[in-house]
């Protein structure tokens, strides 16, 4: 059966007011439980955001539970407790430089493991029409590559940073599966470096006005290089956002945050989600009715929570 190329769009139907309700109740419970409710709160929020995102009118789903993430949360606390314990031990022993070295080395060592664990968990708990996502990256391989890139970044005084960021993205995103579909990201550190250099310089010259167009280029670079493949068949993603769109989005988001003292957070999240999905167009010939189940269930949420502590946002 030959399928004609179709255009498709993801849709986000969440409303700030509804999400606010969830966020406020979560804040309350997190406060009265002295923070221990946090994993459950996060699960509820993710379930809402996923559930309000749909493709062909069928919602995505997040199946992670507070209990799974609580175990991860405790493990993350232990890991960070040990790390900071060592840090303060060396400070106490009067060796502040070793303390700082240990802390940074520890944080860098945790990073790839956190990214890996976080993707593995998050993807395995995400589904659409009952078909699970999955992450097939190899932890040892990724960690080795990660350290190599960190090393290059250090010896080039940070110049390799652009290649580093894109290499991580290439590796991680290209290891995502959606049933039998394979996600591909094909970025290039050189292009990314030049884009950021131009963006940086023009933003300075234009007193920051260009930064919205820089943002638009970054978004397009993240989206346009992303595709989903099934053998010969393909779905390509394309950004439709303009610099003006980003200007409107970010300025209004900032005004909401400033004038509500941050309490308008829920509306900002929903506006942004709505914007992102609205500005991505899918074109391709993969039959969305024939994706088959291939990925296993997986329930270790440690990476997810270490990611939170390090303030890592998932790179999608």
């Amino acid at each position, binding site marked *: 059966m030959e399928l004609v190329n179709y255009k498709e769009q993801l849709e986000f139907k969440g409303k700030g007011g509804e999400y606010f309700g969830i966020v406020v109740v979560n804040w309350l419970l997190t406060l009265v439980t002295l923070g221990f409710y946090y994993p459950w709160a996060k699960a509820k929020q993710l379930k809402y955001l996923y559930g309000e995102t749909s493709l062909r009118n069928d919602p995505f789903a997040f199946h992670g539970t507070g209990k799974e993430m609580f175990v991860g949360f405790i493990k993350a606390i232990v890991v960070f407790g040990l790390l900071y314990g060592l840090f303060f031990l060396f400070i106490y022993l009067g060796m502040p430089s070793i303390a700082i070295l240990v802390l940074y080395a520890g944080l860098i060592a945790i990073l790839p493991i956190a990214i890996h664990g976080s993707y593995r968990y998050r993807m395995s708990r995400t589904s*659409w029409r009952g078909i699970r996502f999955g992450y097939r990256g190899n932890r040892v391989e990724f960690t080795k590559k990660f350290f190599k890139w960190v090393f290059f970044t250090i010896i080039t005084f940070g110049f390799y940073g652009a290649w580093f960021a894109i290499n991580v993205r290439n590796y991680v995103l290209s290891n995502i599966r959606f049933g039998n579909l394979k996600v591909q990201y094909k970025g290039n550190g050189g292009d990314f470096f030049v884009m950021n250099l131009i963006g940086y310089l023009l933003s300075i010259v234009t007193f920051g006005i260009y930064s919205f167009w820089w943002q638009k280029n970054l978004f397009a670079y993240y989206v346009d290089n992303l595709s989903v493949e099934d053998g010969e068949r393909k779905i390509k993603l394309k950004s439709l956002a303009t610099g003006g769109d980003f200007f409107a989005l970010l300025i209004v988001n900032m005004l909401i945050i400033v004038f509500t003292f941050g309490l308008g957070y829920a509306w900002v999240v929903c506006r942004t989600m709505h914007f992102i999905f609205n500005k991505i167009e899918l074109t391709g010939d993969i039959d969305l009715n*024939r994706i088959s189940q291939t990925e296993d269930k997986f329930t270790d949420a440690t990476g997810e929570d270490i990611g939170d502590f390090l303030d890592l946002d998932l790179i999608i």
Partner: protein
Amino acid sequence: MYYSAKYFDGKSSRSHEVELGNFPAEKSLSFRFDGRSYSWRLDQCEFELVHKTLTISEVNLDAQLIVTHPELIKSLNTVRHKSPVSNLYDSLVEAGRAVHIGLLIFILGIILSINFLVLPAIAERSVFLIPESYDKVIGDAFFDQFIEEEAINYEQTELAQSFLDELEIEERRYFNVSVIESDQVNAFALPNGEMVIYTGIIAKMESYEELAALLAHETAHITNRHSIKMLCRNLASYLFISTVFSDVNSIMSVIADNANQLQSLSFSRELEHEADEDGIQMMINNQIDPKGMAKMFSRLNSEAEAYIPQFLSSHPVTDERIAFAKRRAEELEQEFSEQIRLKELFDQLKRTE
């Protein structure tokens, strides 16, 4: 009664329409698909309600049913809420804007009252957990770095030190004073017993009682470990606020920040009061007229109209404090003889200007 639902078999992404049948005694869900009848036991199902869409997953299969019919969702509510807690959660989420705003105000109220009422008291009381050797470490670190960049007035330093040595202070700790060449009307004390006085503040003083009052006040800050108390307080507050707003990273920077700003660390009203009271007591013990305290404050305060001297920004002088110092001095009805040695040293100090 039949409800239509979407069925996904967990093997492919194809969507199927099914009719959900009456569930006998609310124990199971039954439907026909592909010529076969299925019956899912409700206690083997997981339910996920997002907005108005209920996803039902059979735990042993990968299969899912998606239900949007409000009546069916409602009738499954009792099965879904295995515990009263999850029921309460849903009713709170669905309770509407007014309740949510009420909750928000309640949350903010709790956060603010913990931050301003509970934490400071706990933090100040937990100061005894920090060994006194820490006072010295943190004070030394700051002082060494600070003094490097300042011009010391050695002549005045020596006279001020002799003045300080004349005073009896009920504490074994060694106090040291340095006079710094600067127009700033400022003075501060470090937890390691080092006091720094700017030439600007000496220039404003007209009697030895005022200098004695300043030193007495500053030594009281040190002996009562006020700097460490304020560090604990600021840190506790920051730890709390950043934990609440989950901003763990910047906690470390606050420790560093506070340690770098020992000289402008603002004391709370209670701590200032304590330092005033102890300072006055110390003056009395040394046979110095405590009116000097009130005099020093009013002089600094009248200056403040034109510009705010740095001393006041870290030691806010309120009319209340001046009134307190005055009252304490008047209550005494005690005559103080002139302290000749102190007066002599003060006059010498003034002559070197």
